[in-house]
């Protein structure tokens, strides 16, 4: 029996590692270990006012800070009977598009691409692929700028709140976003070209289930009140506990989720598998050209899905900014009750993020946050195990095995700070 370790798992957000235990040529176990320290955020926000909770929970993660903010807003607004004005809703859509561009460009070009081109980092790619690294930085900077204009700051902006925004951006700023988004579409298309040109190994391929938020009005989108399960099922987001059924495992400070006892995938690939037929523009063509049955089995294709989704996000920014600019700044919508419960579901760049709240007399009694990476962990381990068994059966060496497993974990774009969210075990 021997043990192979990848510690730390690099080019991911947060502190984790992979442990593979082998018995001869048999894989005993493959675990994605989360070393990131626990923070107990859900316990800390108990007793807080909803506005204070909204300052704290986005700090779970810097990369998807606005997804956390938005999921919390949706949950809290449902609980308090707040109906946001149209302009606020459009601003939220716009901020999510910005975060999507920021996160997908960071992951595809800067974190995942070095694996496919054989470099230890994007920094090392500067000599040979300098233009692509610069493209990535341009896209990321623009995504950040959209986040800054809408939320007030690149990371952890406080402008989005319950019932509306503190301040709405000027028409001039909105026009600038629109123009720059259109200019950057070719840089995102280049990412699609790169990720569609690679030869994806078959070793990790095994069928799984895909879950994503069902965007309203038959459109592709990043928030909604029900969840699509790839086999054709639609479930109310309030039923999130049944969809995720979490448990604690000894090798991780992050909890694990399964659905009907099976692992499932969330993320850009799940969104495109479930809603790809709703895409329009160049993103629709790119999806049609690149989609195949392999998407249902191979997690590495999530990189390609992220690149296509980035094209969609850029193509939709002009429409969002025009609609926002056409509306007058509304007053914030007020709470209509002091007690209630609600679940907010949004698509963070790496998959479904749930924030569930129960509020009593204006104070938070229960907060339950389930992050995309926590949902993906079992699925990552399942694909790593399959990959490991097949590679060993094929006589591959340990030196070949380790980077292959690392690439699988990285393809899910794991967000370890997020995953170290700690869900309550028992209800009071």
């Amino acid at each position: 029996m021997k043990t192979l370790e990848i510690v730390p798992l690099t080019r991911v957000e947060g502190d984790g590692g992979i442990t593979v235990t082998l018995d001869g040529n048999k894989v005993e176990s493959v675990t994605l270990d989360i070393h990131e320290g626990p923070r107990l955020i859900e316990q800390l926000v108990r007793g807080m006012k909803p506005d204070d909770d909204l300052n704290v929970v986005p700090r779970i993660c810097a990369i998807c800070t606005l997804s956390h903010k938005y999921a919390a807003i949706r949950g809290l607004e449902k609980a308090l009977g707040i109906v946001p004005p149209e302009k606020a809703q459009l601003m939220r859509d716009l901020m999510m598009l910005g975060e999507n561009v920021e996160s997908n460009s960071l992951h595809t070009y800067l974190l995942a691409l070095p694996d496919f081109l054989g470099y230890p980092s994007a920094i090392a790619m500067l000599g040979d692929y300098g233009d692509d690294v610069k493209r990535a930085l341009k896209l990321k900077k623009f995504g950040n700028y959209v986040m800054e204009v809408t939320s007030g700051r690149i990371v952890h902006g406080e402008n989005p709140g319950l019932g509306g925004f503190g301040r709405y951006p000027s028409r001039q700023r909105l026009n600038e976003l629109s123009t720059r988004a259109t200019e950057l579409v070719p840089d995102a298309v280049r990412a699609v070209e790169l990720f569609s040109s690679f030869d994806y190994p078959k070793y990790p391929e095994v069928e799984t289930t895909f879950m994503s938020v069902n965007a309203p009005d038959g459109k592709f989108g990043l928030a909604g009140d029900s969840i699509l399960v790839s086999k054709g099922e639609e479930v109310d987001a309030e039923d999130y506990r049944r969809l995720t059924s979490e448990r604690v495992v000894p090798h991780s400070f992050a909890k694990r989720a399964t659905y009907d006892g099976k692992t499932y995938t969330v993320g850009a690939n799940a969104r495109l598998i479930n809603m790809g037929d709703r895409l329009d523009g160049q993103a629709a063509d790119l999806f049609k050209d690149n989609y195949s049955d392999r998407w249902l089995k191979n997690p590495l294709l999530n990189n390609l899905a992220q690149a296509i989704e980035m094209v969609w996000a850029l193509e939709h920014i002009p429409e969002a900014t025009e609609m926002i600019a056409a509306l007058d700044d509304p007053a914030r919508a007020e709470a209509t009750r002091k007690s209630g419960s609600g679940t907010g579901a949004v698509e963070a760049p790496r998959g479904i993020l749930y924030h569930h709240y129960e509020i009593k007399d204006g104070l938070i009694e229960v907060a339950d946050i389930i992050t995309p990476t926590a949902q993906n962990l079992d699925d990552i381990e399942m694909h790593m195990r399959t990959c490991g068994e097949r590679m060993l059966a094929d006589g591959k060496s340990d030196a070949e095995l380790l980077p292959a497993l690392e690439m699988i974990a990285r393809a899910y774009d794991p967000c370890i700070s997020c995953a170290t969210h700690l869900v309550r075990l028992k209800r009071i």
Partner: protein
Amino acid sequence: MSSPRIGIYGFTGCAGDQLMILNCEDRLIDLLGAVDINSFAMAKSDNQDGELDVAFVEGSISTEEQLKHLKDIRSRAKILVAIGTCACWGGPQAMKLEEGGFEDRYRGVYGDVKIEVSKAFEAQPVDAFVKVDMKMPGCPIDKTEFLSAVSKVVAGRHPYFYKFPVCTECKWKENPCILIEGRFCAGPLTKAGCGAVCPSHNIPCVGCWGPTDDLNVSGEYKLLAEKGYDADEIIQKIKKFGGAGVAKLVKNLDREREEVRK
């Protein structure tokens, strides 16, 4: 002369400060040319554990493993800079520091399952365990402040950090005062550096850079109470980010509380 050797490390937090370093985008390439980045696990794979001229440490410390790693970094680094509010003050995960109840909160989350990865404890700032040469708070840190600090530190000079509260920056922006309007704003209690971003969006400061230097917390406490604010709620609010720093400052507030009650 060889380039200064730098290490960038993350512990318990949101990785936002490391992300802000990546967010330096176009200037990142210049930065990479000027220094030798020995370790930056979030950004690259070929990391080394050698001697360092400067270590930048993000996040609070909340497990035995992290503590071991932190001590190792300290032993290899000539200068250690705590970056971000979590490293400087503990951050949101340290908001209940010195109030007790950590074990109950831990059990509330994990139940009785024993987690073998490492032993966890309540999060504390970096200087609770090792010597910290400089503190650069922020949630997240400001890019400009970071880049200017890096260029000064690697040149062997001491960077300049703001020593006044958010109110000063807010006045520079000529914002109307939110506190005078009757909404609680943590500006007077909070260290500057963000550019008074929240008040500039008509939103009260949430205190995310932690306590300002030389904060007279008892004076502020009485002043806010006189203006009709619930001063204890305010302490809770600024503890959301200021953790260890605020906990230390509010230890001796009993006399003020007594006076306010009268």
